[in-house]
């Protein structure tokens, strides 16, 4: 099993959700996040007043999928979240040792 964490632009959330569902993945956890990578913060001026934009709004998705679904999920995310500009986000993939469904103690991929 693989855990996929994707940090994307908030405006792409609906499209990414739809793409994942289309790819057959429905279990997604969504977090409201703030951060920056190379995109860095900047200072804006608002009618004469300075306003620092240190961290930018992002959305973080977490999903755990079977090994064979990993590439399909990544492809689904990239296909709609990519604009080609700085700030499109990142995807992190890591291995998961075990999944347990609390309700009935099912374990492994069946619990996903």
């Amino acid at each position, binding site marked *: 099993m693989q855990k996929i964490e994707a940090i994307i*632009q*908030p*405006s792409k959330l*609906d499209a990414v959700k739809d793409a994942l569902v289309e790819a057959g993945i429905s279990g997604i956890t969504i977090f*409201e*996040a*703030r951060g920056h990578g190379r995109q860095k913060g900047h200072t*804006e*001026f*608002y*009618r*004469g007043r300075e*306003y620092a*934009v240190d961290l*930018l*709004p992002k959305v973080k998705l977490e999903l755990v999928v079977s090994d064979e679904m990993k590439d399909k999920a990544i492809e689904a995310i990239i296909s709609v979240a990519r604009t080609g500009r700085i*700030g499109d986000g990142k995807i992190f993939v890591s291995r998961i040792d075990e999944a347990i469904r609390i309700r009935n103690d099912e374990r492994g991929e069946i619990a996903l």
Partner: protein
Amino acid sequence: MPSGTARGVYEERMAEIRGSFESSGDGLQAAAARSALVDELVMQFWEQQLAANPKLGKGVAICAIGGFGRGQLFPYSDVDLMFSVEKDAQKLAKESIRSVSQSLWDCGLQLSFVARPPGECERLDAANPEFSLALLDLRWLGGDQDVFARLREKCVAKLRARDGKALGMELAKLTSERHAKFGDTLFHLEPNIKDCPGGLRDANVCQWLVGLRTGKNPQGVGDAAASSPSSEEFQEAVAFLAAVRCFLHYRHERDDNVLDWQAQDAAAKHRIGLQGSGRGSVDAAYWMRAYFRHARVIEKCLLREAEGAGLEVETPSTVRRIRVPEQAGFQIKAGVLELSETSGSGVDAAYEPDIVLAAFRAMAESGARLSQSSEERIANAIPRLSSNLEEGPGLWRQLSAILTGQRAGHALRAMHALGVLELILPEFHGIDALVIRDAYHRYTVDEHTFVLIDTLHGLKADPKKDVRKEVEEWRVKFGAILAELQNPGLLYLAAVLHDTGKGRVSENHAAESARLAQSVLSRLEMDGYDGGVVLRLIETHLEMSAAMRRDIFDAETVRAFVGKVQTHESLRMLTLFTYADIAAVHPDALTPWKAENLWRLYIAAANQLDRNVDEVRVHTRVSGGALGGWRKDEKITRVLSLVPGKEAAMEQFLEGFPERYVSTRSAETMRQHFEMTQRFAEDPFQMTFQHGATQSGSVSEITLVTQDRPRLFAGMAAALAAWGMNVVTADAFANQAGVVVDTFRFTDSFKTLELNESERDRFLSSVRDLVAGRASVEKLLSGRRRAKRRPPRVAAETKIEFDETASSHSTLLQVIAQDIPGLLRAISATLSERGYNVEVALVDTEGETAIDVFYLTTGGKRLTPAQEAELHQGLMEAIEANSR
């Protein structure tokens, strides 16, 4: 009987009770029948123990408490049982009690049992006040009658006598905490019909309060309201909720009292709780309104009983002390507002709309609540109030005063419950207790509106300790925008009306609400500018939320959004509205993340707002459509329809104006401006003047329509400065033919025009002479009185910026400075002295900061860098000189 057999019998009898409920729909009867069945079962098991050990006949009484004590056991409710055991019988009874309990469990009952000596029941159990309250419903099932008599006549009677007051206070505290869990409102989309405000638990609280007041156990639901004329409606309400609770228990097959959407559909289909001879299913929305009506009755009864007992069952809030004039027709004592029996004119004060509305204003300002008798009198007076109510600006002043009171939501809820709000705004009736099903909202549409208004007022409140720091920080930040609004009443009016369109069948509720609002605005005779602000806010109330779902860092998203708001005042209002609208969906909906995104969009839009006004111009004939035909903007079509036979001339008039002009003026206002151009032959300086001194701090408006000529804008600004007027906003637009429309909105610093009506004509004639060059600006200014200036609360540094990218043919100048009377005159005089032409002017005030934007040309071209530098210097000097 073995418990296995008993279970079979119990289930059989329960099936009969269910069958009976399904045919009669009588929930109270079903609850009573189950209670009687459990009585039998308990005693049957006890008799078995007694037969085996006759010594148990002495020293043990079996009692029902809580809901079981009241003889009301809903199909899956817990059974509260108490064994009152004398100390010397405890050892003997222990095993028998365990055995009875086991048998009852084996029958499938959810049993909560307690065994206590009678003496332990005579004091309030501070660690478990619920137990002491359950004792108020004590009922004898069997066993030793002497023990029961001692328990009831001595112990519980002592508890009532000694701790009755403390019990009442515990009851109020528990009720208040329970209500707080439900946001202190009964108007939930999926209410818990037992625990929500107005639910069955509140009906029980009424009964307990009556019991504590009278010193005896209320017998049956009617007792709770026996002393009230509304006892019948209370009983009906309890019967309705009892039927619904039975229905939910059978539907969910457990003690689950949440009336979810599917259950609402099913209840409506089976007409659960509905009286009368109607047949067939009813609409779920109709059925839910019946639910809310009954819940309101119970809530009202609870508040009345609590008020009678001097208890507070709502979340405590401070009632602010306010001064009420002696002749007001009402008084406020200990947080309760009481209407006078007779007004100055000798009739009941409840018949006088002015007094009733002033009373609601006082409630909005202070947070006081209406006394029960005043409520009843107002409710009965509605037909008389209806015929006595006068619409127009007076009504708007009163409504605005209510809406801007810090506790407006509280006053509006009371007005709504009594029918007074619908009297003023019948459009609100369509969303009364309306359930719109979506995954986000928690409250009915009317309650959502009131929570939204509470949220807006909450922006001004003192910091709260029990709120997360980051949420609190955003609240303070948005609160600063609220302080900058020129007329917050308009925002609140738009808030009241924004969802009224949901009560009609329409695909676009925002447009439908705006349509309904038009008739409200015309009844209130609101001026065109204010009315336009309200309508635009209602029409666009979803635009900012929609923009937040796109990339708010994308310039195109911001530009498209800005095209819909058009002015800073509208942007400020829409930002605040969106903040409050999200927060009013449910308590956790406005996360710091969303607040930050909203703030960023606000800033981006504010920065963008004045940047391309000169560039985007009206062209009355626009190519478009699939067939490449001619398409006219909808608003322009509307304007043209107002001038039959003169369409071509009107098109010519509109041609070349910045789009900002068309989008910020009503069709009727544009028609007036056009008609003014038709009278140029009589007088080339056409003016309209609207005096707004009907209330303190109100804004007057003067509009000049004429052919463009040098110094026009500067002349107007100078005339207003000379008369001591403080310009709040202004704009100046010109069309392709060189017709200018300059509009100034200003406050009357010295109340010159308010106190001397005759001066208004002299003022207008003076303005006319100045713009026509017939009088000297300098001469007029030399006689100007200077107001004694208070030091500013927030100092604003002067900043002057030029932007070459905003327009292809003009230079954008933005001046940010302390808002001091005469500032606009100083700036515009500096511009005109240099012969710079003002193509577009946009003047705005934010709190104590003036933000003035001008699009300038000289000889039809942009300013050169050298001209900009020289102008920068000149403006700095002029602003400095004006501030001295």
